[in-house]
């Protein structure tokens, strides 16, 4: 039966338009990703500026931090906030979790910078709602009256709990570094303040049931930050360098 000619030569009956449609869907998604990526790249560039300003805390004495670090940093953060607004506007047109891998990292970076800036200004932690309040910009007022954090119902751009907590881990690492450097710069009160803050935050992290994920790994690292800061505090207390309450007040 397979003796004559070419029995298996012929045209397939497969409808190739299926693959054309597929290509156009893939292209559509790439276009969206590229559009979002462009905004995220801008945010990332601005983020490097913000972080370079913030990293001056490690060699600027506490008294001058306000003018030399916090003020310029605030301006840089405001620029980032505008980018977050544009991102929110662009991203809210699409399913949040379909594309959030594009911006996750940069959002965490900017939230972390903001958290650090705020801590240096006030010594306090910003809640996720307050973070959202800061970043909502004009977009959120127009499109969503509520603060876009941890959105559960509407599929819009927001800052997730995971983003917030991962950002917090970065802030803590930076503060642990500051504990050492502030002693070098002659500020003996700051390590105590940092130690208390990190321990308070870690107490919170210990409540969470974390699976073996990024958040688990990052938050496990807080232990080491605590130990490093305690080391600094211990060194100071051993030598009687820890300021009394009145001294702390005078310094502030």
């Amino acid at each position, binding site marked *: 039966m397979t003796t004559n000619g070419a029995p298996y030569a012929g045209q*397939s009956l497969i409808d190739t338009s*299926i693959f054309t*449609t597929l290509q156009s869907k893939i292209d559509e998604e790439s276009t969206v990703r590229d559009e979002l990526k462009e905004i995220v790249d801008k945010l990332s560039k601005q983020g490097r500026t913000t972080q370079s300003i913030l990293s001056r805390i490690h060699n600027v004495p506490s008294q001058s931090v306000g003018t030399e670090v916090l003020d310029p940093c605030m301006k840089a953060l405001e620029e980032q906030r505008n980018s977050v607004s544009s991102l929110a506007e662009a991203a809210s047109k699409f399913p949040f979790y379909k594309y959030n891998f594009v911006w996750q990292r940069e959002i965490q970076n900017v939230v972390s910078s903001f958290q650090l800036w705020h801590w240096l200004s006030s010594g306090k932690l910003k809640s996720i709602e307050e973070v959202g309040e800061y970043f909502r910009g004009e977009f959120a007022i127009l499109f969503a009256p509520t603060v876009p954090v941890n959105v559960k119902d509407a599929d819009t751009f927001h800052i997730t709990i995971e983003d917030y907590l991962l950002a917090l881990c970065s802030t803590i690492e930076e503060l642990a570094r500051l504990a050492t450097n502030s002693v070098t710069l002659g500020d003996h009160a700051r390590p105590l303040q940092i130690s208390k803050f990190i321990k308070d935050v870690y107490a919170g992290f210990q409540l969470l049931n974390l699976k073996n994920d990024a958040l688990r790994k990052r938050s496990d690292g807080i232990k080491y930050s605590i130990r490093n800061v305690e080391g600094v505090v211990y060194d100071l207390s051993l030598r009687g360098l820890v300021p009394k309450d009145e001294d702390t007040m005078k310094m502030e």
Partner: protein
Amino acid sequence: MCVLVDAIEEEHYTESKARREDDDWQQTSSIHPMAGVKRNRAEMESKEQEDSPSPYLPMFEHFKSEIDTHHDRRERVIKASRDITAYSKKIIFALQRTKEIGKPLTDRKALTDMTKLKQQIKETFEGVTDDLQGINAHRYQRQISPGIQEFMEAALFEHYLVNQAIMTHSEAATTIPAGITLTYEDYVLGIFDMTGELMKIAITYMATNGKLPGLQGGASVLTDMQTMRTQLELINAGHGPFAKEFEGKLRVTRQSVEKVEISVYSMTVRGKEMPKGWKPDINMRQPVEEIESY
């Protein structure tokens, strides 16, 4: 009694752990260890803790419940995805017993099994529909995706066996219960996997019938597979996680097509001399065994 022992053991554990940490501490500290160090530190710590419980606990309590809900949902979806994968594999297995391509299925046993399996798949999907609504549709996409892909493979394979055609995306979407999204990614990855099944059925068919299945005016399973390969090779998958998966699957599809090509070659060249039931030697030219490991 038992409880007491446990409690003592636990206490002992925490004590020894604390001691270990103290040891670590002394090693890393620049200060020489000296008497009284431990006590000082312990006092310092307990004093601080008594002074002020963390003000952030209520906030974290809230996160805790959110994160727990998330993990529970995620696990339900993973479980469903695994079950759907298992049921789909059984469907594919039943489909491999098909005798002719391009005709309605006739194997009664296979049809009964498949109806039952499809019902189980439907119920499993429906069990997690609530978990995959609105914003969560894409949130747990990575967890449900393997199940959907395997089911797509089964649905596309069945459709091909009956109609000798590829089901379109919109047709495919109707095979999944309402409320579950069929992404284009899962659909196309299902097509890739289906080519592997086509390879298996083509080779079995050739071994038993001495010709290619699905012969229709020159077209056959082979020409269909070659067309799919060409069309899939034409696609630019872009970059990102999907593109990587796409490349990997394309490699396997190429091998499947070549495996059938070689079998047909060997059948046309030497098959005539062989008695009926002779299996073509598929490993004659290329190291195709590795396909099985995918």
